[in-house]
């Protein structure tokens, strides 16, 4: 079976991914493209035994490396290995899309053009004569609609046809004067029998030289004939400048391309009625309104977090019950104590506490996907740029920052849309302040434990807002200290509002959920087992026995129903002496209470002597000023692996260390009764700010291309988190 690699290229918002999805149906798999983290979507099509592989390149307006992700696309097109370019065009905006097409044509590669969004174009009365266009360009052009799936088969047929046949040079014609100069250069190269080492045609070289492309200059500069070529080139450029009455080559190129695109448009495009087109305009008069725009935006965000909490609450209860039931049922059927503890307290408690938050995660990712696909994201950037600019950020920083609410990993990658390196790094430093989806379980747990149900959604919203505000302040501080420099210009397209395809939305939410479940099933499962192990071993039989005798003694007294003095208690260890003292004080109340207290103390002492306890005790002094007990300290450390692990660690630690009775099973209640409000708030603040998980940090290092900045990130986030948590702890303590 022959493999065809197709580079999907197009301007942003033309529906590239959607088209790939439509072509391949449900066979589409998205994975990471080795090296440059471009998403590679692979689809296997059985037609004629060809396997088609799509490389979904980031959208770009032109082949100039304006931003880092556009550079990725450009580099791939110039040096990557692929069989053909599938140029996706938004039919409702042919003029501007053709500007990129003309640049792609200059690459002299096999190419097929998909005139996408045909359904929308028809509605707006736009008709493109694709046959005429194919003839003019010598490139097959197919009108398709990824939404209605029209002409998809024809497109695939054209792709196969072009792949099987040899390259037909695309016809890109410049104005007569430019063509004349190109001819002169080509003739010179031909006369010298020049053959380019990387199989570029002489016309391509001539175009590259005239357009002053760096790569071509570098290539030609090494050739001996450059000495003779140079005066010729000078002369040609002079003619072109004179003709265009302009001495900026970029402007000349732009005019040439515009003229070609306009000419082509005039030949193939006919617009019959002007209808529907102003819908976006009408929505925008409200959504980016001077006064109402921002309040509407804040309301939408608030709604999203309310929904995340209230709607997510319902299935959360079911999942919690299911895992509770599962734990009990399995627990009853296992006789081996150690194995039972591993499965019930380790695996089920750990994985269950993470899976429980799946509904919240799904709603959050759906919200972010909606923001992105409808086109509202760029409106938000428009609204916020003024505000962001004051803090030294860029309106476009909004996109990676919002993505950061989902997961920091794609957020770091999304920061590539920022051109300026300093703006990009600054934004990446701030992304951590946008609480990612993995931190959501921690917040939901604590918000649920310390706030009324009606207030929990607001508390959640407040946590996110406060995090974001702290991020802005940190941005300002970094901007005036570490990242001084010029501002990046704010120029950005406002795409049309579009109703997203349900299929694509489902695809996004589904793939994120699967990723989350996989993580829970593998990584978090292992982490839960590890934490269970280090929190159960080494077993301390001595303490167990001592407490057992103590409890037995009390029980015996209870049976006698005589509140006698209790001086005969064996006092072998100091710890037990203390315990006895405690028990004696409590004795007048009730012996049963004393037994329960002893039971708790036994667990406490046991856990403290495990590996985890020893580790926790060692780091406790560092966290003590924040009001964290050693369990919370350990949880924050384990959260470095993945933030969800914080919850599973707490789940394992508190279900082992405390008496879990029938009426007190929920982790939320255990936490509410074991942790003070001040410590809890400090804990939330710490989790909000401290280093994103290790995976995200690795991506940061890769994207920032600098070890130095990665080290800064680690120090910066830990220091900020500690200081802010310290302040929070003390303020809440003062107020309470």
């Amino acid at each position: 079976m022959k493999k065809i690699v197709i580079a999907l290229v197009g301007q942003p918002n033309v529906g590239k991914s959607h088209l790939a999805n439509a072509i391949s149906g449900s066979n589409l798999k998205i994975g990471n493209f080795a090296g440059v983290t471009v998403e590679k979507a692979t689809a296997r099509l059985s037609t004629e035994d060809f396997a088609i592989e799509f490389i979904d390149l980031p959208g770009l307006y032109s082949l100039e490396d304006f931003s880092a992700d556009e550079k990725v696309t450009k580099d791939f097109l110039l040096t990557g290995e692929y069989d053909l370019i599938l140029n996706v065009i938004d039919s409702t905006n042919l003029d501007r899309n053709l500007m990129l097409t003309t640049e792609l044509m200059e690459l002299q590669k096999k190419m097929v053009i998909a005139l996408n969004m045909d359904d929308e174009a028809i509605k707006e009365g736009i008709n493109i004569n694709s046959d005429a266009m194919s003839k003019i360009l010598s490139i097959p052009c197919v009108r398709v609609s990824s939404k209605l799936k029209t002409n998809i088969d024809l497109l695939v047929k054209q792709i196969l046809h072009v792949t099987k046949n040899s390259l037909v040079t695309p016809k890109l014609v410049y104005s007569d004067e430019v063509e004349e100069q190109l001819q002169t250069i080509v003739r010179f190269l031909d006369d010298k029998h020049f053959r380019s080492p990387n199989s570029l045609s002489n016309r391509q070289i001539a175009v590259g030289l005239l357009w002053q492309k760096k790569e071509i200059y570098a290539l030609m500069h090494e050739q001996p004939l450059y000495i003779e070529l140079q005066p010729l080139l000078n002369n040609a450029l002079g003619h072109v400048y004179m003709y265009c009455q302009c001495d900026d080559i970029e402007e000349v190129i732009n005019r040439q391309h515009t003229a070609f695109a306009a000419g082509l448009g005039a030949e193939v495009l006919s617009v019959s009625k002007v209808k529907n087109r102003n819908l976006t305009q009408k929505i925008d008069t409200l959504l980016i309104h001077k006064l109402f725009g921002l309040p509407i935006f804040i309301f939408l965000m608030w709604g999203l977090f309310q929904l995340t909490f209230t709607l997510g609450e319902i299935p959360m209860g079911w999942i919690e019950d299911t895992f509770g039931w599962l734990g009990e049922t399995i627990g009853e059927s296992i006789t081996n104590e150690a194995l039972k503890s591993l499965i019930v307290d380790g695996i089920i408690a750990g994985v269950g506490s993470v899976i429980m938050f799946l509904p919240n995660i799904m709603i959050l990712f759906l919200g972010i996907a909606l923001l992105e696909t409808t086109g509202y994201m760029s409106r938000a950037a428009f609204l916020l740029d003024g505000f962001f600019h004051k803090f030294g950020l860029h309106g476009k920083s909004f996109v990676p920052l919002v993505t950061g609410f989902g997961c920091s990993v794609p957020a770091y990658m999304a920061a590539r849309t920022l051109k300026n390196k300093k703006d990009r790094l600054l934004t990446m430093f701030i992304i951590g302040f946008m609480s990612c989806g993995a931190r959501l379980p921690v917040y939901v747990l604590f918000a649920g434990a310390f706030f009324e149900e009606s207030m929990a959604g607001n508390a959640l919203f407040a946590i996110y807002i406060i995090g974001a505000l702290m991020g802005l302040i940190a941005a300002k501080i970094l901007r005036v200290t570490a990242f001084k420099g010029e501002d990046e210009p704010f120029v950005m397209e406002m795409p049309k509002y579009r109703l997203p395809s349900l299929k694509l939305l489902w695809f996004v939410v589904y793939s994120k959920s699967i990723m989350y479940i996989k993580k829970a099933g593998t990584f978090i499962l292992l982490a839960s087992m590890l934490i269970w192990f280090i929190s159960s071993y080494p077993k301390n039989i001595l303490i167990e026995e001592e407490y057992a005798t103590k409890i037995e003694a009390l029980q015996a007294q209870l049976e006698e129903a005589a509140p006698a003095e209790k001086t005969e208690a064996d006092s072998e260890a100091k710890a037990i002496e203390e315990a006895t003292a405690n028990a004696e004080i409590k004795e007048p109340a009730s012996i049963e209470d004393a037994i329960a207290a002893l039971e708790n103390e036994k667990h406490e002492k046991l856990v403290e002597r495990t590996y985890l306890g020893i580790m926790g005790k060692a780091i406790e002094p560092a966290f003590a000023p924040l009001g964290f007990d050693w369990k919370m300290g350990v949880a924050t450390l384990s959260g470095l692996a993945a933030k969800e692990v914080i919850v599973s660690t707490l789940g394992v630690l508190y279900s082992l260390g405390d008496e879990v009775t029938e009426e007190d099973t929920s982790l939320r209640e255990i936490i509410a009764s074991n942790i003070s409000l001040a410590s809890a708030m400090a804990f939330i603040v710490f989790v909000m700010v401290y280093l994103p998980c290790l995976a995200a940090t690795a991506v940061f290092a890769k994207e920032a291309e600098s070890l130095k900045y990665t080290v800064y990130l680690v120090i910066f986030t830990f220091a900020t988190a500690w200081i802010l948590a310290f302040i929070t702890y003390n303020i809440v303590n003062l107020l309470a």
Partner: protein
Amino acid sequence: MVDLSQINKNQKVLIKQIHAQNTLKKRLFSLGLGVGKEVEVVETSLQKNTIKVALGFSAVALRFDEAKMIEVEAR
């Protein structure tokens, strides 16, 4: 010289020249803000930080600083 930042809302103008540096100029070109194009200012933000202009079938958002670099001529 009249630049785009001085244009009132809902006014249509022609782009005469772009006084931006290399990269920014290319970006403006590729977003459709070419010399000779007709544009309309459709929205400005509260503190006059950003403006939205409509051109042909698309719309572009700019900061006022960038709008100042675009020389225009009223129709």
